[in-house]
């Protein structure tokens, strides 16, 4: 089953999210109040490791396990990055969780967060419904 490796990767990612406490509402509050370095350290060091990895991939022209050339999808700027980003930020500070942590929180033993996740799916659906009327 070709998707099994992604299931395992996801499980490892979920474990890291819980153990480094980035799924904690309290950690997100600390971050937005500038009262702890924890979240900045996590995101900052993740970006540094990601950047070095991507640089190495390009520098040595590394290939995927199937032998394909690695392609990094380009993100085109839209005003959605701004408006959507602000809206997500508002929600992030309320729920204390971005989409990855929502899944991890449910698994960690907080089934009520499934309601938050369903609501996030509804938010995504409503975006799909009205997107042609929104500035991008």
């Amino acid at each position, binding site marked *: 089953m070709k998707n099994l490796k992604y299931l395992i*990767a996801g*499980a490892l990612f979920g474990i890291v999210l*819980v153990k480094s406490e980035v799924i904690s509402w309290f950690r997100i509050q600390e971050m937005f109040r500038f009262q702890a370095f924890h979240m900045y350290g996590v995101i900052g060091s993740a970006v540094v490791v990601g950047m070095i990895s991507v640089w190495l991939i390009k520098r040595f022209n590394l290939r995927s396990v199937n032998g394909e050339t690695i392609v990094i999808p380009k*993100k085109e700027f839209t005003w959605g990055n701004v408006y959507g980003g602000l*809206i997500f930020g*508002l929600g992030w500070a309320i729920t204390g969780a971005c989409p990855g942590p929502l899944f991890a929180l*449910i698994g960690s033993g907080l089934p*009520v967060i499934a309601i938050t996740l369903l609501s996030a799916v509804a938010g995504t659906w409503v975006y799909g419904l009205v997107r042609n009327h929104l500035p991008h």
Partner: protein
Amino acid sequence: MEFLKQPWPWYVGGPLIGLFVPALLFAGNKAFGVSSSLKHICAMCVPADISFFKYDWKKESWNLFFVAGILMGGFIAGQLLNGQHPVDINSHTAELLKQNGVKDFGGLVPQDIFSFHQLLTLRGFVFIVTGGFLVGFGTRYAGGCTSGHSIMGLSTLQWPSLVATCCFMIGGLVMTWLILPYLLQL
């Protein structure tokens, strides 16, 4: 094993999270990101003839396996690796939250706000339902979330992701400093 049961410091968790960027690229040329899964769930369950959801979501099914894995990992860490414990936050933050009416500091989230019982109160509804809606709407409008933009996008030096990340922070700061104190008192 003892280490697995302790909370991990940022310099362990952060670099491990960063490794998912190359891991997914090596595994099958996949761009690290979580919020797309919400779109695929819409396309799979309720496409409703909306053009945005008319695509072959099965081609992106790896992402659904990835988030199912996150759920499992949450269970493993939360239930088997002692993940449910009070979070050792800055005492100033705790004090401020107490002044704003937060009472439960015993777990990853304050359960006096996030619980099925609270869902039927105005405050619980705002935090559990409205918050989730903003997360889902905002991430799709922004074209990604903390993982897709802040980690994958910044790692690959894409300036639109830097713009998005700054806006995530601005939105979060406005909510935390200007609006949240009122929402907590609801």
